[in-house]
């Protein structure tokens, strides 16, 4: 005789859950973000009503503060070379803002669409160099030249993106790397003396409005950089929340699922790629103005790696994290070089002095440590702290999972 035991563990006895849901239903459900912020959403949807306004309020205050900085006399010795109303600090802060914006555009590729591109620098550099060449070679005014540059970069990103996106994962990363490498070589080769080769291209200020030229106008360039950052942030947020953005996110999570539903991942990815590249070019253009020139390093794989480091430091998947990472990286990079010249460092024995004199060594080590011990980056750290003291765990996607989905 045999004994059979009937297992009733809840759902199976009613039968509906196992037989009622078809495959298609389950797929549909998986694409729809769960009711409470389960997917990667901007975390403005909090439980308590006050929380809804906390983040935008903070952002507004922060923005106001940043805008007013050039008129204030704040000194942060060590960190800022001069007081905040003076050109030295303004130049540095403007650069930080621009790099934050650049990191943000990269975040859109990696953190949102899961496109691990190793050639993003190409578009930043293209923006800088194309604008520089147009200003140098043609008599175009600044605005027309900027518009033309953007059009050209859209074409460039469209062309390279359409080719690269035919593959995904590692092959995609390699194609983007190769394109950027080609660009880098082209720039260094100095065809027709257009790019200035290794020396770089210096800015021809003839057509540039006076208020953007000269050390005394660094303030205006700072505000321009701030405007670019806000613009990039707005566009990235808009894309992220748009249908294309959501589609790209879904694609990142599970490409096959999306394809099974008959949607085309290619177009969404290409859109994100082109927008990201174009925004990067905007940053590049302002960079040209700020630095009064363009250098080959901007087009190099090294620069893309820096963007990657910025985004990871800040925490993948977080817009604020990307900006923070960009700012932090730039600050460290710029200041550590100066710090290395200081007497205290110079006086140290070689075994300490040498590593401390190389900002990239410190940044690289910091990066390794962050990856090993703090994989969520700064944003993840802040979130964990917030969860500990704020009580509610934000069910945002773990940045590490986001990154895992990129390749």
């Amino acid at each position, binding site marked *: 005789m045999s004994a059979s035991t009937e297992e009733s563990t809840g759902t199976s006895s009613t039968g509906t859950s196992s037989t009622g849901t078809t495959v298609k239903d389950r797929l549909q459900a998986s694409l729809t973000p769960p009711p409470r912020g389960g997917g990667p959403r901007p975390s403005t949807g909090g439980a308590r009503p006050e929380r809804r306004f906390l983040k935008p309020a903070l952002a507004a205050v922060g923005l106001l503060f940043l805008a007013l900085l050039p008129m204030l006399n704040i000194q942060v010795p060590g960190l800022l070379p001069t007081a905040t109303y003076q050109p030295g600090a303004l130049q540095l802060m403007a650069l930080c803002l621009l790099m934050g914006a650049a990191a943000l555009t990269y975040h859109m590729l990696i953190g949102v669409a899961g496109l691990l591109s190793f050639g993003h620098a190409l578009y930043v550099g293209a923006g800088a160099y194309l604008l520089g060449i147009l200003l140098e070679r043609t008599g175009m005014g600044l605005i027309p030249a900027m518009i033309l540059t953007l059009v050209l970069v859209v074409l460039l990103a469209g062309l390279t993106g359409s080719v690269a996106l035919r593959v995904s994962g590692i092959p995609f990363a390699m194609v983007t790397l190769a394109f950027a490498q080609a660009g880098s070589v082209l720039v260094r080769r100095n065809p027709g003396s257009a790019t200035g080769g290794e020396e770089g291209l210096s800015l021809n200020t003839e057509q540039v409005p006076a208020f953007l030229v000269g050390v005394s106008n660094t303030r205006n360039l700072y505000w321009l950089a701030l405007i670019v950052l806000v613009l990039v942030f707005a566009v990235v947020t808009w894309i992220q929340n748009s249908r294309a953005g959501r589609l790209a996110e879904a694609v990142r999570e599970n490409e096959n699922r999306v394809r099974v539903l008959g949607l085309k991942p290619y177009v969404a990815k290409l859109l994100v790629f082109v927008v990201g590249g174009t925004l990067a070019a905007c940053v590049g253009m302002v960079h040209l103005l700020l630095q009064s020139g363009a250098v080959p390093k901007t087009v190099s794989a090294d620069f893309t790696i820096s963007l990657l*480091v910025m985004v990871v430091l800040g925490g993948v998947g977080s817009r604020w994290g990307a900006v923070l990472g960009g700012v932090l990286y730039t600050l460290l990079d710029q200041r550590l070089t100066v710090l290395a010249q200081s007497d205290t460092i110079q006086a140290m024995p070689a075994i300490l002095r040498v590593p401390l004199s190389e900002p990239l060594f410190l940044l690289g080590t910091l990066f390794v440590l962050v990856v090993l011990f703090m994989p969520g980056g700064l944003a993840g750290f802040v979130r964990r702290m917030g969860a500990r003291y704020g009580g509610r765990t934000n069910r945002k996607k773990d940045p*590490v999972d986001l990154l895992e989905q990129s390749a």
Partner: protein
Amino acid sequence: MSTIVLLLITGLGLGAVYFLVASGLSLIYGLMGVLNFAHGAFLTLGALIGWETARLVGADSWGGFALSLLVGCLVGALLAAATEFILIRPLYERHIEQVLVTVGLNLAAIALFEGVWGTDPVFIQGPTWMGMTTEILGAHISNDLFITIPLAGLVLLGLVLFLKKTRYGMIIRAGVENRSMVTALGIDVRRAFTLVFTIGGAVAGLGGVLASHFFGYVSPMLGGSLLIFAFIVTVIGGLGSLAGAAVAAVVVGVLQQFANFYWGVGDFVVVILLAVVLLTRPSGLMGRKVATA
């Protein structure tokens, strides 16, 4: 005719260098799924310390040269083993973080090397014979190629024998195909990981020393562009395939030489080749089939 012979043989030499760097990359990726950016550091340090050794013993002596090769190999191996043990192992199965960690390591290491050795290239020399040329079919071939190419060939042979004839070689071949099934047979793949990393590092170190002779100089920047081309070669040949890496290395090396000489566009041609290969065969010339769209 003599130009063609020259370009062919120099191309082969360049291919030999590419192969030495790419072979490790390919095996590491194939077995572990890690795109190892730190390979640049392995080859650079191998070249730098190899050069220091040669200088100590006497740069123009054969003993110095041979020793530099050996030391380059060892340095690469040690650095690679340490990297795998300290940085890669703790991140078991987290591939993206493993890649990131190698990116960070490469960044930090190269910066450190720059701090120690400076950024300017140091022009090196080997035994006098290597600096001379031999005439073959009218072409003046730099003698160092007669060492680089056969050495790379020997390494290829050695690697193939290792993979085919040893138990660990078998484990690696199986693991490249299906890592989880290897563990499901009760085998601890992690040892194979360390082994593959170490071998890759050793070969990269060797490649670094030979590269410095090929290009004529040594500097912390040596790894940079070489690494990128090694990546391209690895992807063209097919990640995980040793034979693919060998074939792709030769094709890329020769193509680059010809394109550079006649039209100055060697680097572009390589990029176009990569794009063409990836668009027609995403898994590379000889890689295992990747799940395609």
